[in-house]
């Protein structure tokens, strides 16, 4: 241990690696060497990849996977398995080698041989969906920790609901220095410490090296004490000593706090230290030398049968535990409900409450801010859907995401359904991903649209992983008024629409809000963003039969007489379009109003429908945002009325006038184009 600590100042890692390699070789070391050899061979075959992490963390990961991690390779989706997240996604081979060795179908040796090639499940970074045992897509640093906190929280919440006999598992993370430097990991760790998520443990590859070189060049803080300040139990061990790692993992099992275990390792051990760091290729000579140093005489991609057998046994170590669990659930009174929520099936009558709400809205035609309409919809949904869990990043009373009776999750108490994430948008989005990945919950959470930028990296991953996550984004334009330009989204709608796989809903009134929520709940294969106003919006519809938002866009008000213009708007600007239509009608100009709450769904409709909605006449787009992307719907002769720069601080109505977002301006634009 001392030698590891001392070498930090010394530079060369050769002496310490020599020392490590000179230790007696127990069986565990040989098992870890199998991981190392596979990693070396795969990087060699791909001529690219990051060997450092898999080599350095092989011993620690072997201790975890052979003695602690609860999993059965025969069923990688067993709901009560421990979750393993490789937050340091660039070390993907560590995970692939472990999955291969423990006997997972779908990660045979040819997958490793085709590492980083098109259609191989062994992608450059672990990709969720490429293999059922890959729990999360990782690579962008810090995201794995964010997701793991969500998984650990989901476990606690589901255990509170279904009991320990069905839900009792841990979340393990392997992370790198980089993960811990990113802001998101700070937020996530602070949240996990606060909530006392004691079944979460992070093994951190404390190798003192980053891409740029010695970590001391960019970081001089004491990571362990920092995590202690978050309320974590912290330990430091020699990452190449399986006994020491196992002792630390055992104490994590007993801890009342989340655990951080710093595994001091020698990067790339035994690949001759100094040259093989992050993403550096090894030549054939280095490969040979490394294997010689290990005492590994076997041909590439070959693991001797006795060792392979020991690894396969590790892969079925928890098979008995799983069978016992299957026996328990078979006679569990909540079996059907548990299976329903873990399969992500909605309850039979979930939409009845919304149907009642919709007919009430159609009758009473309330004038409400759409954030309030969203609250009413949630009030209907929450009791009907016990798997629906909410939260907000310290904006509960502004985003109106809390519904009475939900109860808040608190340290040591997880029976509530609402999470106060604190001022931590990024960790919140990461946790939402983790909850959705874990299964059994449908998570939603709220913040302002302007702050969606803070969580964008996690949001992108939700889209990439096609997760059922719902973001409630309020205060969606200059309509928020006095808070001014920092809080007024301009480019956010375009920026979010650009992300493939995201459905962005911007409802125009209470009824559309209920419809959009329905669509978001129903959507099982990707994230939904519900974008809502702070200011009140008049009711525009009285029909509550068909969900008209389901087609993404529709004719809200047809022109009286042959259509001369189509006014296309979203959200708060639809009412403005309706007012403009009336003005134009008074002048004898027949204009239709199209509401376009969800571009992505509209784009999925057939060409004929879209043409019928958009019309072959002059098109005017109206949205209190920048015009980016609108040409698609407006065509070349079209005209856009919206924002061309940042907003200002003043009351809502004044701002709409100031920036020329008025019915008069719309009518004028139509008239100008007609002449």
């Amino acid at each position, binding site marked *: 241990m001392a030698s590891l600590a001392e070498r930090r100042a010394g530079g060369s890692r050769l002496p310490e690696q020599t020392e490590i390699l000179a230790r007696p070789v127990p069986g565990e070391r040989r098992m870890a060497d199998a991981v190392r050899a596979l990693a070396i061979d795969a990087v060699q075959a791909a001529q690219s990849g990051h060997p450092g992490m898999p080599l350095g963390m092989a011993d620690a990961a072997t201790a975890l996977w052979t003695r602690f991690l609860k999993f059965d390779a025969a069923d990688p989706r067993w709901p009560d398995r421990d979750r393993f997240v490789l937050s340091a996604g660039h070390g993907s081979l560590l995970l692939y080698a472990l999955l291969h060795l423990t006997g997972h179908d779908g990660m045979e040796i040819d997958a490793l041989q085709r590492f980083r090639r098109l259609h191989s499940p062994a992608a450059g970074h672990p990709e969720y969906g490429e293999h059922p045992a890959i729990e999360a897509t990782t690579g962008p640093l810090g995201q794995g920790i964010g997701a793991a906190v969500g998984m650990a929280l989901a476990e606690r919440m589901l255990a509170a609901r279904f009991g320990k006999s069905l839900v009792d598992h841990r979340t393990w993370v392997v992370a790198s220095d980089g993960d811990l430097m990113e802001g998101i990991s700070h937020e996530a760790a602070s949240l996990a410490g606060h909530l006392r998520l004691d079944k979460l443990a992070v093994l951190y590859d404390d190798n003192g090296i980053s891409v740029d070189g010695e970590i001391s060049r960019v970081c001089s803080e004491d990571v362990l004490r920092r995590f202690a300040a978050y309320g974590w139990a912290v330990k430091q061990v020699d990452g190449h000593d399986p006994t020491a790692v196992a002792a630390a993992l055992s104490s994590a099992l007993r801890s009342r706090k989340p655990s951080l275990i710093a595994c001091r390792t020698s990067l790339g051990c035994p690949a001759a230290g100094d040259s093989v760091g992050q993403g550096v290729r090894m030549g054939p000579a280095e490969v040979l030398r490394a294997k010689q140093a290990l005492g590994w005489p076997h041909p590439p991609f070959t693991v001797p049968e006795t060792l392979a057998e020991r690894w396969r046994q590790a892969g079925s170590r928890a098979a008995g535990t799983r069978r016992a669990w299957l026996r328990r659930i078979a006679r569990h009174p909540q079996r059907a409900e548990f299976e329903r929520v873990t399969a992500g099936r909605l309850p039979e009558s979930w939409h009845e409450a919304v149907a009642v709400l919709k007919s009430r809205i159609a009758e009473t035609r309330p004038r409400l801010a759409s954030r309030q309409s969203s609250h009413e919809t949630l009030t209907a949904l929450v009791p009907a859907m016990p798997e629906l869990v909410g939260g907000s990043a*310290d904006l509960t009373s502004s985003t109106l995401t809390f519904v009475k009776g939900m109860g808040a999750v608190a340290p040591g108490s997880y029976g509530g359904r609402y999470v106060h994430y604190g001022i931590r948008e990024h960790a919140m989005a990461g946790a939402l991903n983790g909850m959705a990945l874990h299964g059994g919950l449908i998570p939603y959470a709220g913040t302002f649209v302007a702050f969606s930028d803070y969580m964008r990296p996690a949001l992108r991953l939700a889209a990439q992983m096609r997760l059922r996550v719902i973001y409630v984004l309020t205060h969606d334009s200059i309509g928020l008024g006095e808070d001014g330009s920092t809080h007024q989204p301009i480019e956010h709608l375009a920026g979010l629409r650009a992300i493939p796989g995201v459905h962005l809903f911007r409802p125009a009134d209470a009824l559309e809000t209920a419809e959009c929520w329905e669509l978001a709940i129903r959507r099982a294969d990707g994230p939904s963003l519900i974008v809502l106003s702070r200011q009140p919006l008049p009711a525009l519809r009285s029909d509550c039969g068909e969900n008209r938002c389901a087609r993404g866009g529709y004719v809200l008000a047809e022109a009286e007489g042959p259509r001369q213009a189509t006014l296309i708007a979203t959200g708060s600007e639809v009412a403005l379009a309706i007012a403009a239509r009336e003005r134009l009608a008074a002048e004898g100009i027949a204009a239709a109003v199209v509401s376009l709450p969800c571009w992505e769904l509209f784009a999925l409709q057939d060409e004929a429908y879209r043409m019928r909605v958009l019309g072959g006449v002059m098109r005017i787009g109206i949205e209190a945002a920048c015009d980016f992307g609108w040409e698609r719907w407006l065509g070349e002769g079209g005209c856009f009325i919206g924002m061309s720069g940042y907003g200002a601080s003043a009351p809502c109505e004044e701002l709409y006038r100031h920036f020329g977002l008025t019915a008069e301006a719309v009518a004028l634009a139509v008239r100008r184009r007609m002449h």
Partner: protein
Amino acid sequence: MDLRLMADAIRFLSMDAIKHAGEGHPGTPLGAADICTALFARHLKCNPQDPSWFDRDRFVLSNGHGSMLIYALLHLSGYEGITLEDIRRFRQLGSHCEGHPEYHPDRGIEVTTGPLGQGIANAAGMALAEAFLNRMLGADIVDHHAYALVGDGCLQEGLGQEVISLAGHLRLGKLVFLWDDNRMTDDGPIDLALSDDMPARFRLSNWHVQEVDGHDADAVDTALRLAREDPRPSMIACRTIIGRGLPQIEGTRAAHSARLDREQTDAARAYLNWPHPPFEIPEPVCAAWREAGRRSLPDYQAWQARVAALPVEKRRELDRLREGRLPEGWRDALHAFKRRALEARKAEYGIKLSADIIDMLAEAIPELLSGAPDLEGATQHKRRLAPFTATDHSGRYVHYGIREHAMGAMLNGMAAHGGVVPIGVTYLVFSDYMRPTLRLTAMMGLRVSFVFSHDSIGIGRNGPTHQPVEYLAALRAIPNMLVLRPADAVEAAECWEIALEHRAGPCSLIFARQPLPPVRSGNAGENLSGRGAYVLAEAEGGARRATILATGSEVAIALQARARLQSDGVPTAVVSMPCWELFEQQDGAYRGAVIGEGTIRVGVEAAVRLGWDRYIGGDGGFVGMTGFGASGPEDELFAHFGITPERVEAAVRERLQGNT
């Protein structure tokens, strides 16, 4: 004068303005009034008569929602840019007292704040700029502090931790945070969501930490003195009561952003024994504040005298830096680079082109500061530059660590500070980690150059998490930001020239990882990229029938498609569009001629289509990405996703048939 009375002047101006506006956040201005009074009345080096004095201390209100605090401070200490009328019209159109403070150095507002965590990072960037200029110009000329008032929110944000960690690491000793520790957030008491040992977080990142009663201005005063003496960055934890002075709601959640009524402000007047009518400050208190505003006058005059005594060359250099002018002849190297590229005509890795250019420019521009969040090797924008370290603040390359967000916000702080030309480099996918700061750079109109490399599936095997597809669109959507995506070495030089000439806002320079073959030939004279888009290869053999529009690495694909079409007798032009925003500024005739209105138009970009319809029209074609990428060798990926000359050609041909 009793500091308490001076602080009460802030309290009443704030509550009167908030009551008048109908909304606002009284919690911070009332709770932190004593802290800021100690700072402004005893420590802050400033001159309200010359708000943008180069050697002033910088003050940042990081918890921007407490904006009335800074407006009251500036008004009381004599900044003419914030009038009583502005305060009366708090949160109204045309008032300089916006809901959140907006960048206006001539009025004493150093940066726009509101999105949490940004302000403290800006302050760290200012402290870094100060440290660098202090070495470059000497302590006689540059020697000031950066102070930030910070709330719990800023410290909960990930950005906050990145800054704490980096500022401590770099030993930015002139950075001082005043933490308004009021134990209250919007959702309720802090322990609803936070159990951090906050002082510990600072201490173990090598900060000097003190804990004081935030309502004892003398204690804050003493702490500030000690903070300035300590060589480490300092954090002063000031325990306060939120909304201090409003008897019904002080110390409660309601104080955070409560609406105030007459009854409450009357009660506060009785409670604090302040018998004066709304918006009226008694003369002795006013005088004390004006006096505080004049406190640094001797320093100011001494500084002016030192500057006047500088040798003429040094003074010119100082003036140049203050005014943000680049040194004469800075373009020479760029032009030489362009000429060499036109002669050599060889393919070169996209990001290496930028690295070569910066290596040259760094020599011509001594105030250029480069840096990256742990991607020096992959992006190479260090080369001969020495690192900026805890022990050597004269270095010009900042190793930000894996902290993109802190880098972005610190670049803003450096630009707002002035005197330096800040550049930050990372992968395009990680630009999302700093997106909140990009927006603020654009909003403030700061000159920051962001270099984003590894710009498409062209990065290959690292796979979809590292392959941008939606980023170009999302960046182009940000108002007042130039997004430049050069196609080869010549365009790279042109784009850098544009970026450094551009002073009204930030630029994002987007580079491929993979080699970019030369697409430009001919003369080196005009900066063709300066018009945003231009005809790179005109149609031959008749009137133009088709136009292929492309950016960056796809321009070469467009040229290959053109060659195929031309050889088949279809007169086809290729338009290179390195910068959409500049193209939009051209007149309609130029734009129409370039994009070939009336011809068949096909856009090519290894990214999503969003935004392209503007240029390709309703029946145009687009060859690009429709979803996320994949992990594989780059050439296989381009073939897999169909971004090839064949597909571009086919897109043109489909439409040719449709037209005939």
